[in-house]
């Protein structure tokens, strides 16, 4: 336990010393900077929110459905709005939801969540 105590002390001291290096003005601009950052990285947040929902829903509605919805939503969000892209999205979503489920069930004997 001594070792872990040392680790925590080191970690905290390292973090505080790096915080101290920030100039004071940085705190004042923080709110503004933060908003700009949120805007610039909006897709990342979309990605993580979708991932969170996907992981949370998977045990409930099963792997195939959850994956299909996840892939379709995310790809439509990111993809250019053209017909061929839409077709690719649907094909990929079906292949990776139903196809992977089949592959793991039949070939690797790993049973992905089926839902309740």
């Amino acid at each position, binding site marked *: 336990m001594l*070792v*872990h105590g040392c*680790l*925590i002390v*080191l*970690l905290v001291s*390292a*973090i505080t*010393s*790096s915080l101290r290096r920030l100039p004071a003005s940085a705190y004042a601009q923080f709110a503004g900077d933060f908003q700009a950052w949120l805007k*610039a*990285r*909006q*897709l*990342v947040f979309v*990605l*993580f929110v979708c*991932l*969170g929902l*996907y*992981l949370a829903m*998977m*045990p409930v509605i099963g*792997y195939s459905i959850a*994956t299909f919805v*996840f*892939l379709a939503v*995310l*790809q439509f969000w*990111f*993809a*250019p709005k053209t017909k061929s*892209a839409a077709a*690719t999205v649907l094909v*990929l979503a079906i292949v*990776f*939801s139903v196809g*992977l489920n089949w592959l*793991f069930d039949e070939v*690797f*004997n*790993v*049973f*992905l*969540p089926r839902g309740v």
Partner: protein
Amino acid sequence: MDMFLKGAAEVLSASTLLYMLIGSIAGIIAAAIPGFTVTMAIVLSLPLTFTMEPLQGIAVMLSVYVGGYTGGLISAALLGIPGTPSSVATTFDAFPMSRNGEPGRALSIGVWASFFGTMISTAVLVVAAPPLAVFAVKLGPWEYFSLIVFALSIVASLVGKSLQRGLIAALIGLAISTIGTDPILGRPRFDFNLEVLAAGLPFLVVLIGIFAISQLASEVEDAAAIRKGEQIAKGDIDFKTWQVMREVISRPINLVRSSIIGVLVGALPGAGGSIANLVAYDQTKRASKTPERFGEGIADGVVASESGNSATAGGGLIPLIALGIPGSAVDAILMASLMVHGISVGPRLIMDNADLVYGMFIAMAVSSLMMLVVCIFSMRTFLRVAEVPKWVIVPVVLVCCVVGTFALNNRVTDLYLLGAVGVLGYALRALDYPLAPLVLGVILGPIAETNLRRALMTDGDWTLFVTRPVSLIFLLAGIASVAWAIRSHRRRQTSKKNDEEAVQ
């Protein structure tokens, strides 16, 4: 010799060769896609090798690894975008070369250089690993603990721009590794009574979360670029296989020097192909009679970068096989796959599982040969791969990560951990913290802890760590590597200041 033949027989069986072929194609394809790193490709191939024999599984992963180092060349040469961080220096000369109307020659030189680089590094591995392991077996828990402290200090000082950030990342890794069950007494600790944390954070989940998910998330940072596809360079792609081979072999000094640099860099914990290609390129440029022609499409530059990054594959395996310490994230995954198969990794690996180790040597050689053959015959097809847009890659690979994580233990709680670690990894990446020390901390943490506590249980005397000579040497080396890093950091800062003053 018996063991050698046994290992060879297993690697050279038809089914293993077939899987390895698939593996090297997959590695090349994966690395050719910008934003899809070699590490990610290996992480994703891990769950698929669970059902195989241990050696078969590791042979497949090695072929993905070797193929991956070459695949990065494709997008580097044709698009000027490094497909993986390990082919950054390749873009300096291969891209101008293909712009000058010789894309086939650029690719061909790179492929041959990679092939020779891997071969040379495998030779070094075969020579260096067994004696090192014989030495390492004699080490007691004291020496082993000190060795790991040394390894972690190198990791933290080598990776990234700031020593402090490296150390913080390594410490976060160590802290993560203490969550879960105590390795000696089996007591739960730091689990906050949460069921999710009771079993600890399996380090494969941490690996996938940190490397794959955070990488994917940072790929979509640029909202505008993702929606448009990228056009590939057009040009005459003619391979001229044998002619180029002579061209590459006629630069033996460059080839050997870059490969040795790759091996050495690969053998250091924490440094990998991403550093080796730059160092090798730099050294070759300095030694060249015509340094001013570098960057305009000179063959020497391509040879240096590609043989340098491919040679790290063999170099990184030296500490893994001899000491049980992974040299890079990729080696950590290879180590994990051995552990999943119930093989304990450490200096005794080469004695207890000699057939496996010899099999790995053969698999390295076979997979570089396979990579060469695959590239020569189907390079043109791979060119199309680099056109796959990001909006397809990111969601699909995310699903693969999730499936892979679940398949490790069939535990739904691992998926929640994956999500959490992914967010943490992205946060660290966005704040410009190096991720490799963190992952190596997670892996080396339990080894260090077990050895430390075993040492203290044998003899409660702390001074043994500094009175046993070998242990003392490792500890001093650790302090020296941190001190050296601080010094070079200081020097860089003062030189930067001088520059600024000169400008003013």
